[in-house]
């Protein structure tokens, strides 16, 4: 069992941080790697990136957006509750190298995944320009941590409630115009990553994205997480999760993420009813 020792709520309750006791995983994990969590006996196996870790305390942090049954179940777990199963670290760690100027772009909960990579890239000596964005100010996460992790940070909101009024791509375009950028790392909703990739292609700037397909085992045995990269089939859980953005077939990824929409709704309704039946 893996106990939750600390819990924080962001984005008006739609994004949750859990700090979990998992000393063996904490000792091994590197930026860019993820874990698979299962809440209880009936639970699904859900991949989430480690947003932070503390080797001494033996804890890992996960930050997730509540989008369906499993993340709602996770949301309902409190400090002292435990996940039945956590497996990891999974996936390839980020390749951290000193390149010069790099830009780290994060959108939505993607910022949680981006944060340890940003920190790692700065630690090896890069000048890191962070760009983070959200729909509006009150759902923006991890601004302080990202400010610490990057050399300079730009913030955008779609509705202009904070920072730059507009999308992360607009700020990125300005940076690409002015600076000699060696690498762009982009993590966020698939459409964001897709549009950003079109932009960096114009500037011929190497770009890396972290992909989030549906997974089951996370060890390369089921093929559920397959994506097309440069015309080849790759398993994100073992070959990724990070790939050369200019080669990724984002359309296919977006399509495959829709595989279970009706079942997800059925499952969510059943879960909600489970809650309602208690009071009613």
């Amino acid at each position, binding site marked *: 069992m893996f106990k939750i020792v600390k819990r924080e709520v962001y984005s008006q309750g739609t994004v949750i941080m859990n700090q979990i006791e998992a000393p063996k995983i904490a000792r091994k994990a590197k930026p860019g790697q993820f874990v698979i969590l299962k809440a209880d006996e009936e639970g*699904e196996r859900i991949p989430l990136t480690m947003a932070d870790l503390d080797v001494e305390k033996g804890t890992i942090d996960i930050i997730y957006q509540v989008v369906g049954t499993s993340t709602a179940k996770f949301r309902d777990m409190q400090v002292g509750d435990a996940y039945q199963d956590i497996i990891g670290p999974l996936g390839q760690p980020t390749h951290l190298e000193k390149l010069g100027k790099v830009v780290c772009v994060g959108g939505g909960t993607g910022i949680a995944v981006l944060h340890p990579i940003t920190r790692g890239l700065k630690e090896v000596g890069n000048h890191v320009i962070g760009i983070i964005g959200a729909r509006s100010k009150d759902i923006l996460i991890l601004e302080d941590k990202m400010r610490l992790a990057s050399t300079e940070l730009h913030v955008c909101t779609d509705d202009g409630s904070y920072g730059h009024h507009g999308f992360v791509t607009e700020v990125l375009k300005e940076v690409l115009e002015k600076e000699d950028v060696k690498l762009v790392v982009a993590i966020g909703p698939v459409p964001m990553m897709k549009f950003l990739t079109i932009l960096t292609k114009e500037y011929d700037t190497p770009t890396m994205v972290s992909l989030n397909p549906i997974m089951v085992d996370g*060890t390369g045995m089921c093929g559920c997480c397959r994506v097309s990269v440069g015309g080849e*089939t790759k398993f994100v859980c073992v070959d990724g999760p990070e790939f050369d953005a200019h080669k990724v077939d984002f359309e296919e990824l977006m399509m495959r993420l829709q595989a279970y929409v009706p079942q997800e709704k*059925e499952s969510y309704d059943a879960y909600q009813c489970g809650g309602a039946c208690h009071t009613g």
Partner: protein
Amino acid sequence: MAGKAKKVKIDRQLMPAQDPKVRARNFEEVPYGYDPETAMKEASRCLQCKKPGCVAGCPVGIDIPGFISLIEQGDFQGAIRNLWGKNSLPAVCGRVCPQEEQCEGVCIVGKKGNPVAIGNLERFAADYERENGTGELPPKQKATGKKVAVAGAGPSGLTVAGDLIVKGHDVTVFEAFHKAGGVLVYGIPEFRLPKDIVASEVGTLERLGVNFECNRVVGSIVSLDELFEEGYDAIYIGVGAGLPRFLNIPGENYIGVFSANEYLTRSNLMKAYLFPKYDTPIPIGKNVVVFGAGNVAMDSARTAMRLGADNVRIVYRRSRDEMPARAEEVHHAEEEGIEFHLLTNPTRLLGNEKGFLTGMECLKMELGEPDDSGRRRPIPIKGSEFQLECDLAVVAVGSGSNPLLTRATPDMGLNQWGYIVTEPQTGKTTKKGVWAGGDIVTGAATVILAMGAGRIAADSMHDYLALGW
């Protein structure tokens, strides 16, 4: 002798089974097993051969006439003790061994009629013990103070764990999944091998003192060298052949196309057949196609039918004679209404604008000369393309070696397909202190072969731990 002639006149005792129409829509086990009386009657058909062919046909050399004669006498506990001597998972093997190719295939009684139902009897003895036995454990030798790590809790790793724990070693099994059992829990469905049985076998090992560490991917959370540093004296690798093979034809990434590993893992391990009580979803196909004709394909097809498909088709590029599945599985599948499209090869999968599978294109095949595997090679018939409607496809055309652990262990020898090279008489790999066996050495094979390899390695590991070689 007159007595003997009379004996074989008894017909092979059938196991009562669920009605095909009913069972095609539920996940309960298909055959019910013998009652004691029927088991004794079936046991009486054995001729107690002096040179029993059946024993030579069993990969682990079970004393078949011995345990059968104990059943005939009604000494069921004696029978199970006899079986345990060679096979630690008789309830499993009795159910899933390809008996017609092994023990029963060479039983003398089978020459003129139906062979003795060795598998059914093995199953009976094990089930009887589980349900009525005292739960006694085999005696354990004095603690040796030696520590053994086993990677993978499939039949091969479980056999090693069981053998070495009774020899007094301290055994820890590291399993990547959240449950122990390997293919027995994630691949073979409930209706063929109830998961309670696997859990009970794993429970016995736990009671014997084996330490199970689930959710531990060796090669990722810990390397083999780190295990040695942590004080393990010997390591066994039984991680199976868990890499799905696809057809590499256009359209394979449409929604609704699954590897058999994914489809069966969702249904079996994650219990998606009980969705939404369990959270993991699985789509219910209307028109399902399954590519391949081995046990994995039969399990996928029969699962799809139970989940509520309108029709399920097996699509296989060779003919009936080359189908690798156990005879009983093919028979059960046919009874349950699975259709067989033989000598048919898929060439392309078709989908709609939303990315959902809608159909497939195939080619008719004919058989040519035998290939390397000795089976007649299927060759396409020109101009025979045709289309089939389908909304769910399961690819069950075999599996390869999963490189997760081997990639993290560069100093261990592999063959050209990525399987671990071992010395056949001992199971030793090229890395000191490391043994391997089962599907990760042979490629996808059978439960009993994986167990046999585990037994050989366990003997060699014990020598190494006790004597240093």
